[in-house]
C-alpha cells in the first residue's frame, strides 16, 4: 500500500469527518492506501507542514493557500469537498448591532493564523478600517473560544456555523439574542476546507495516482458521512485523542458540516474559485493577494477520481 499523510487544519472534529470515515470504513484500504491523519492545532500551519514535507496533502482554506502561493510556496488545490463557507460573524443584539452599518466603533473578534483574510477583505469592502482608526472597527484576536461575546468584551465574534455558534447557544444565549452575518450571505464567502498539495509533486505520475485514489476514497467517506451523520460523529469521537469532544456537540457539528459539503462532488468549480479570488483581490489597501493566481488549482485529480 502507498503511504499518504493528511494534515488537518484543526483538531479532530466532525469538520473532518469524511477523512476519518474513509479511514475507519476501509475506503483508503480498498484504494490500497495507508493514510495517516494528523490533527492540527492552534499553532499548526498546514501550509508550513506541507512545505516541510510533513504531509503529502493538507486541508486548508483557500485564502491561506493563495497567500502562501504568493509567498513562494506553490500549493495547488486538487479537490474541494466543501462547497460553501461556514464562516459567520455572530453578534449580540444587546450590544447594538443589527446590520453591518452598526459595526463602526464596535469590537469584533476575529481568528487570525491565516483565517483573517476573508474578514479583512469584507471590512475593506464595507469601508471600515481595521487598524484602530475612529471610523473603523476594533479588532480583537479571538482565542479559541467564544468567551469575548459571552462576557461582553466583544460585540461580535467569528464563528463557524458548525462549531462556535453552538457554543454561544450552549452558553445560554438564544438565537433571538443574536444576529449572524454569514459570509455567504454577504457575498464575501471564500472557499474553505480544500485539499492542497505541492505543485512539484503533481508532475510525478505515481504521486498523482496516489492522490486520485485518495480523493476518490475521501469523497466516498464524505458522502457516507453526509448520509450517516450520527455514525460519522461517533467515528470522529473514536479518533479524538484528546477525549474532550462530546457526542452531542459532534453530532450537531456533523449535521451542519453536511450542509456545507452538500452539492460538492469534490471537484472545484472555477466560478467558486474566481469568486474567492475576486473577494481577496478586493482587499483594499493591504490586499491578501496582489494578482490573479495562476495554476492554483487543477482538475487533473478530480477528473480521474470522479469519473
Amino acid at each position, binding site marked *: 500500500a502507498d503511504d499518504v499523510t493528511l494534515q488537518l487544519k484543526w483538531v479532530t472534529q466532525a469538520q473532518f469527518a469524511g477523512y476519518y470515515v474513509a479511514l475507519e470504513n476501509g475506503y483508503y484500504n480498498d484504494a490500497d492506501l495507508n493514510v495517516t491523519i494528523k490533527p492540527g492545532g*492552534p*499553532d499548526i*500551519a498546514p*501550509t*508550513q507542514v506541507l*512545505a*516541510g514535507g510533513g504531509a503529502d496533502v493538507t486541508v486548508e482554506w483557500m485564502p*491561506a493557500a493563495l*497567500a*502562501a502561493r504568493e*509567498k*513562494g*510556496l506553490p500549493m495547488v488545490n486538487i479537490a474541494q469537498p466543501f462547497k460553501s463557507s461556514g464562516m459567520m460573524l455572530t453578534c449580540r443584539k444587546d450590544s447594538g448591532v443589527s446590520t453591518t452599518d452598526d459595526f463602526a466603533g464596535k469590537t469584533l473578534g476575529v481568528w*487570525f*493564523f*491565516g*483565517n*483573517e483574510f476573508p474578514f479583512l477583505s469584507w471590512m475593506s469592502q464595507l469601508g471600515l478600517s*481595521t*487598524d*484602530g482608526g475612529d471610523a473603523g472597527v*476594533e*479588532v*480583537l*484576536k*479571538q*482565542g*479559541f*473560544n467564544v*468567551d*469575548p461575546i459571552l*462576557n461582553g*468584551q466583544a460585540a461580535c465574534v467569528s464563528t463557524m456555523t458548525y462549531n462556535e455558534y453552538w457554543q454561544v447557544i450552549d452558553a445560554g444565549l438564544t438565537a433571538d439574542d443574536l444576529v449572524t452575518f454569514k459570509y455567504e450571505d454577504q457575498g464575501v464567502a471564500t472557499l474553505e476546507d480544500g485539499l492542497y498539495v505541492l505543485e512539484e509533486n503533481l508532475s510525478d505520475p505515481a504521486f498523482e495516482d496516489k492522490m486520485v485514489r485518495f480523493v476518490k476514497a475521501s469523497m466516498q467517506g464524505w458522502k457516507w458521512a453526509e448520509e450517516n451523520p450520527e455514525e460519522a460523529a461517533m467515528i470522529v469521537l473514536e479518533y479524538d485523542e484528546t477525549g474532550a469532544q462530546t457526542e452531542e456537540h459532534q453530532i450537531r457539528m456533523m449535521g451542519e458540516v453536511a450542509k456545507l459539503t452538500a452539492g460538492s462532488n469534490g471537484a472545484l468549480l472555477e466560478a467558486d474559485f474566481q469568486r474567492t479570488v475576486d473577494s481577496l483581490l478586493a482587499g483594499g489597501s493591504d490586499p491578501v493577494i496582489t494578482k490573479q493566481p495562476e495554476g492554483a488549482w487543477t482538475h487533473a485529480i478530480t477528473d480521474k477520481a470522479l469519473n
Partner: protein
Amino acid sequence: MTWLIGALFFWLAAWALNTRLANSRLSTTLAVRTFIPVLFGLTLLVLWEGLVRGLGVSQVILPAPSLIAKTFVGSTDILWVDVVQTVFKGALRGFAIGALAAFAVAILIDRSAFLTRGLLPIGNFVAALPIVGIAPILVNWFGFDWQSKAAVVVVMVFFPILVNTVQGLRETDAMQRDLMRTYAAGYFQTLLKLRLPAAMPFVFNGLKIATTLALIGAIVAEYFGSPTRGMGFRISTGVGSLDIDLVWAEIAVSALVGSAFYGLVALLELRVTFWHPSRRS
C-alpha cells in the same frame, strides 16, 4: 556545497581564534570577554546561513539570518508597536506589580513563623507549577488587552520572588542576629539594617528568574486572545501566514529585549550586592 564548507571553515577558524584568545593573557580584559561570545554567536549565525543556503532549506521553514536581518530592519515600526504592547504594557507592568507584591507579602509573612512555615512549602510548590496554563483563564477574566497579560506575568513572577525573598530574609547567620539582640534592636531596625541587606542576593536571584518568566508569560498569553498587535500576536499570526522571517525578527527582538532586561537586573544586582563574596573577585 561551497556555502556549507565555507561556513564550516569559518566556524573552525573562529573557534581556533577564540581558543587562543581565551587562553591568552588578554582573556581577562573586558574587550576580549565580550568579543569571544560575540564571535561565537556570529559563528552560529554563519553556520545557520551556510546550512540554509547549502541545503536549500525553504524560507517558509527556516529563513536565513540575512533575510531575517533584512526583515528586521524593514519592519522596525511593527516591531516597536509590538514591543510597546507586550513588553512595556504587559510584561514590565506585570513584573513590577508581581515583584512588589511578592516583596511585601514576603516581609509580611516573615513576621509570623506560622505563616512562613505554612506558606513557604506552598509557595515553593506553586513556583514549580506550569503556571502558563492559567493564561486562558486570566484572559477570560481580565480581557484581551494588556491587563490579562500583566495578570499572567504577575502570577508567574510572584512565587519565585516570594520564595527567594523569604529564604533570603532567613539567611542571616545566628551571630549577626545575636549582635542585633545585644543592641536590643527592634524588629524594624533589624529588618532594615540586617535582614534586608542580607536578603538582597536572594531577592535578585528571584528577580533574575522572573525576568525570563515575565517575557514568556506575556507572549504565551497573547495566544489566547489579544489586540492586533503584540509579539505573541505577531508570532502566532506570522506562522499562519507564512511570514516566518517576521516571526524570527520577533524572536530576535524578544531575545534582545529579554537579554537587556536580564542585563539590567544583573547590573542592578552588581551594584546592590557588591559586597557578596561571589561578586568580589
